[in-house]
C-alpha cells in the first residue's frame, strides 16, 4: 500500500514536471493533454487518474509553485531577524526563486493567466496578503514600521507593488530587470513605511541586499 502510494506520487510528479516543461516551451494554450502524455511517457489513463483536465493540472502547478514560494518566505519571516528585514530579504529571495525554479515560475505565469477565472488565485493572493499583514504588524511592534500607519494596509500595499513590478518586468524585459525593479520599489516604499529612526539602517540593509543579489561586491 505504501509502495503504491509512492509510485502514484512519482507518476504525479512526472506529469507535473512534463507539463511545466511543455507549457514553458509552447505556452499553456498551445499545449494539449496528448503532448503532455507523450512528454511524460505515460498512458492517458495514468494522467486522467491524477488530473481530469488541463485546468486541473494548471491549478496543481499554481498551488505547488505558490506553496514553495510561501514556505521559503515563511522560513525567513519565522527566523530570528526583525520582521521588516525579513520582509525585504524574503521578497528578494522569493523573486529570485521565481527566476530560477521552473515550477515556481510557471506557477506565477499560470496564476496571472487564471487571475480572474479561478479560485486558485483568490486563495493564493489571499494567503500572501495575510502573511505580509502579519509581518507588518510585527514590524510595527518592533518599531521599524511607522506607528501612525495601518500595518495590514502597508503589508498588502507591499504585495501589490511587488506583484506590479513583476508584471511590468515580464512585459518589458521578459523578467530580466526584475531585481532592479524590486529594488526600486523598496527604495520608494521604505521612506513611506519605515519609522524615522530605522530608515537609514533599513536603506543600507536594502542596498546590501540588492547588490548581493546582482553578484557584485557590496557598497562601502
Amino acid at each position, binding site marked *: 500500500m505504501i509502495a503504491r502510494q509512492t509510485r502514484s506520487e512519482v507518476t504525479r510528479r512526472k506529469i507535473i514536471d512534463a507539463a511545466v516543461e511543455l507549457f514553458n516551451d509552447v505556452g499553456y494554450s498551445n499545449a494539449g493533454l496528448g503532448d503532455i502524455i507523450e512528454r511524460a511517457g505515460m498512458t492517458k489513463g495514468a494522467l486522467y487518474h491524477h488530473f481530469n483536465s488541463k485546468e486541473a493540472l494548471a491549478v496543481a502547478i499554481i498551488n505547488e509553485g505558490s506553496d514553495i514560494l510561501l514556505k521559503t518566505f515563511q522560513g525567513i519571516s519565522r527566523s*530570528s*531577524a526583525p520582521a521588516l528585514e525579513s520582509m525585504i530579504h524574503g521578497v528578494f529571495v522569493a523573486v529570485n526563486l521565481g527566476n530560477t525554479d521552473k515550477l515556481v515560475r510557471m506557477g506565477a505565469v499560470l496564476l496571472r493567466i487564471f487571475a480572474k477565472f479561478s479560485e486558485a488565485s483568490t486563495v493564493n493572493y489571499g494567503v500572501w496578503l495575510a502573511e505580509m499583514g502579519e509581518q507588518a504588524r510585527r514590524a510595527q511592534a518592533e518599531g521599524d514600521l511607522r506607528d501612525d500607519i495601518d500595518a495590514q494596509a502597508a503589508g498588502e500595499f507591499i504585495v501589490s507593488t511587488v506583484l506590479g513590478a513583476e508584471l511590468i518586468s515580464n512585459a518589458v524585459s521578459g523578467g530580466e530587470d526584475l531585481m532592479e525593479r524590486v529594488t526600486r520599489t523598496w527604495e520608494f516604499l521604505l521612506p513611506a513605511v519605515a519609522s524615522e529612526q530605522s530608515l537609514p539602517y533599513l536603506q543600507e540593509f536594502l542596498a*546590501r541586499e540588492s547588490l548581493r543579489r546582482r553578484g557584485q*561586491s557590496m557598497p*562601502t
Partner: protein
Amino acid sequence: MTEPADRRADSARGPLVRAAAEQFARKPYSLVNLDDVVAAVDISRGAMYFHFPSKQALATAVIDEAHKLGHEAVAGVLANKLSGLETLIDLSYLVAVLDTGEDLARAGLYLLESIGRVEGLEARSLGEVIDALAQIARRAVDEGDIAEGRDPEDIARLLVSTYIGIRHTGDLDNPQQFLMHIEKAWTLLMPGFANPERMRYLSQFVRRRTAMASGKVLPQRGPA
C-alpha cells in the same frame, strides 16, 4: 510478541535523555546522580541500564541529541541566505539563545568539555564547528564585509574561543546580561577584522539582533 515491551522500552529513551539533560545542564558531570534521572522518568534503574549501561553512555546520548538540535538550528539560519558576516552574527545569537534557554543545548556544551577528552570528541566537534564557520567567514571576505587579507580560519577560531570564554565568565541563567556580553564581544572584536566602512551598519545589525534575541529569552532564571 516482544513488540509491546520493546515499544515501551523505546518510549523511555527520549524521556531519559531529556531528564539527563536537565541534570547535566545544572550540575558538573561527576555530581550528577543517576537516581535523580531515574526518578524523574519514573522507571527502574534496571530499565535505564537496558538503554544506557553507564553514566557516560547517557551523557554521550545527550551530546548526540544536542548535536542534532544544533545542526537543525544552524541549517535554519543558513537557509535564510543572509550575507556571510550577518550569518556569523546570527549564529552566535542563536547559540546563545539555545544555551541559555534549552537544557539539552546547555548540557551538550558542558558535557563536551567534561567528557569530551575521551576519544578526542571535543577537539573533533570544535574542529568541525571552526571549519564550518571558516567557510562562512570566507564568504564574508568575498562580500567585502571582512577586510581582505584576514584569515577566515583565524576569525572562526577567535569566534569559537570567545563564545566558550563568555560561557565560562558569564551567567547562563541571566539571559539578558548574557546577550549583552555577546553584543559587547562583537563590538570589540569586529574592528579587528571587519571592513571599517561597514562598521556602522554592522554595529547596528548586532544591536538589533540583541534586541530581537532579548525578546525571545526568558528573564532571569533562578538555580533549579
